[in-house]
């Protein structure tokens, strides 16, 4: 079953075509990697899936119905986007991890569980979030999304600028979530990583998306 289906989706930003006639299916309960060079439209695609913006043309469906018929706030609770910059909110790690659950009145939730699922120990809960390293921030941002137990995780380069060990922890965490039924869309520059973690790879180039078996992708390396 497809969680998302895109048919002929187009998007222009500041007069420049970023996505052009994209046809794509995101299979539920699987990891789909979007691989491609900078500026190819990968992040824009994620933002469309999270409804932070709307397509200019084409059809985008979520769970079989037009995405525009779904309330954007409810959609974002179900399909959470973790942006590339991992902005931390002022306060402790616990404040960050609990941000969305407090906002949505979710009480049966333990922030330590989300933190551990993202590969951080509970000792981090009291730490000042804005003083964390890049890798730690990435994991807190992931925990913040995991806290909502979403149907889908939309990850924008969750391991960029992260040390190999942290990167490995994030990969393991996300694959574990996939095994538990979460749909993951993973934007990456790293072709090897895409091959390692994904069930499906989509090659995004010049605003067009092509399903790939990975063999057509330069045999590894980084865009």
């Amino acid at each position: 079953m497809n969680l998302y289906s895109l048919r002929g989706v187009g998007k222009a930003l500041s007069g420049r075509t970023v996505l052009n006639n994209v046809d794509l299916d995101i299979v539920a309960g699987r990891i789909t990697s979007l691989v491609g060079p900078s500026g190819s439209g990968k992040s824009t695609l994620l933002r469309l899936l999270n409804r932070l913006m709307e397509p200019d043309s084409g059809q985008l469906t979520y769970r079989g119905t037009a995405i525009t018929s779904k309330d954007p706030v409810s959609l974002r609770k179900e399909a959470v986007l973790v942006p590339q910059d991992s902005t931390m909110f002022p306060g402790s790690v616990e404040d960050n991890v609990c941000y969305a659950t407090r906002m949505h009145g979710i009480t049966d939730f333990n922030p330590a569980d989300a933190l551990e699922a993202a590969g951080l120990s509970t000792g981090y809960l009291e730490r000042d979030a804005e003083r964390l390293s890049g890798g730690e921030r990435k994991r807190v941002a992931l925990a913040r999304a995991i806290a909502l137990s979403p149907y889908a995780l939309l990850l924008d380069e969750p391991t960029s600028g992260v040390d190999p060990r942290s990167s490995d922890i994030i990969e393991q965490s996300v694959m574990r979530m996939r095994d538990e039924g979460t749909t993951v869309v993973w934007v990456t520059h790293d072709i090897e990583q895409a091959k390692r973690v994904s069930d499906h790879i989509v090659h995004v180039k010049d605003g067009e998306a092509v399903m790939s078996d990975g063999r057509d992708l330069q045999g590894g390396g980084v865009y």
Partner: protein
Amino acid sequence: MNPGFAQTPWEGLVILASVSILFFLVVLVSSWKRVGIGKDMTKGFIIGGAQLALVSIILMALIEWEGEGTIWLPAAAVMVTGMAIISAARSAKRSPDMPFAFRTTAASISLGSVLSLSVLLVADAIPLRPEFVIPLAGMAFGNSMDICSLTMDRMTREFQTGRGMIETRLSLGATSSQAVEDIDRMAIRTALIPTIDRMKTLGIIFIPGAMAGLIMAGVQPLVAAQFQLVIFLMIVGGGVITSLATVTLARESFFNENHQLQDWV
């Protein structure tokens, strides 16, 4: 008895002309020192003087009409509407990129000013007479305009620098108002700090205009101080209402109905 100030416009003009020597001296010094404000100061003085003269002439007419019942009220309403339009346009000019900026500033400034002024009238703090209503409306609209501009300035800056933070919150299912709660609070605080600071230093660093004017006109200083406090309550009350209305209404310019940031931000 010589009251110490002009009794007729002609006497006032003579006094003004003699005091203008100080102004021309300042203009001369600034051109000599090449400060580059001489032209602006002269222009400001002429425009400001002309505006004050115009308001005074209108006020004189309204005060004269006051004796003929409530005929002055429609004229005062036109004047207050003019104040609302001009203050809203000036405030909106500070955010040229923002769509519907005038609508936001006009509604916010008018709401804050008219409500606070109405409270004063209903509480019988001031009589419904043109010599009270018009000057106080000027103060209310002027202060609300400043507070509205400061609120919009701060909001626009915070939205532009904090776009990542706002979108991260939205992506976690925050509504547009939840995503900018802290920005709203910060904008309101920033806009009101100068007014609150002025209130804290009342009487110590400066004696404000209304109180000074009343004392010079022979009113008991304690009564003048009480009236000044009434004015400050109007200014602060109107300012808070204006600022709150600005952040609420401006949100529609920053976000669309789908809780998405607008392209111009």
